[in-house]
């Protein structure tokens, strides 16, 4: 039987530091949207998580 955590935010990538207040998940700062997409993609490939866009300059990577 496989066990693991599901529906959890694994990481946050943001271009706006103001938008994230203490996160339990590691937060990565990106200088622009292009870098945000790239970093989010790289993290999602490593964690097998899915990238979601919050439309406020933040992307979250969630394990489903």
């Amino acid at each position, binding site marked *: 039987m496989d066990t693991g955590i599901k529906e959890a935010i694994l990481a946050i990538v943001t271009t706006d530091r103001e938008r994230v207040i203490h996160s339990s998940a590691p937060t990565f700062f990106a200088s622009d949207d292009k870098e945000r997409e790239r970093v989010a*993609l790289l993290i*999602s490939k490593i964690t097998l998580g*899915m*990238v*979601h*866009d919050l439309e406020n300059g933040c*992307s*979250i990577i969630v394990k*489903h």
Partner: protein
Amino acid sequence: MELYGRILVAGIAAGSIGRLLLLRADYRQYPSFPRGYVTHMVLGVIASALGAIAVPALAEKEYTAVTFLALAAQQFREIRSMERDSLESIDRSELVPRGSDYIEDIAKTFEARNYIAMVTSLTASLAVYLSKNTAAGFLAGAAIFAGIVFSIRGIKVEDIAGVVGAAIDFDGPLLRVDGVVVMNIGLKEAREKYLTRAVAVRIIPRDDNARATLGNVGQRQALAHNAAAQLGIRRDLDEPEFTPIARRNTENGDIVLAIFSMEPDIECLIEAIKKTPVLESSKRKPLDSPAGRKAAD
């Protein structure tokens, strides 16, 4: 004594032929060929033998033979759990899993097929005993077999709902199919792929019964699995955004499904969805109750 020999042979043969006719490896590739076939064929022959032996035993006033049939029923329950276990373990390595409801449905079918083999052989041997004619036995077995198979045939999605092509669009990062939000897709590249190369359908239930049936999560997973199995899925484990998910329009009970398939052919997707079996466990009939009927109008 010679009659008993004929009864046994006719019964076992009729039951085994029946079991063989029900063994088919189609796109589902289940039971797996060739080893899965051997297991089921042998069990089918055993089931037939148990059915066939009952008549001569009862004719000889060996009434304990009935307990044999009870033993058989016990054995066939084992088949169900055997199928369930094996399907569940391989389901973990499927790109689009079948889901536990679909698995339960398949397991149930396999159990039922052994009962069919047993009843067929029982009927055939009984007919041989009564008519002393082997051909009559086969005929009776064939009739019962056809009757049971016909009466337990399942219905397909096309029997309860219409399926039409649907439009995919994005509201910001939200993937929508005919206006129903499916999921949030964060990567621009993935969104572009959906817009250019994915296909989507809308399943419109015909009545309240169909609406409740199609709303079942297991049934929807079966739809996604069947679509992916037949059209081919263009995704790997590290691309969860391309997992096909069937979402429900909560306003009217319509189901929408978008799939990023190897063959983005809408006609084929509609065909695959239409031919998906309606799972026995997901069938609901609210219209059969007074309250449900009243609420429907």
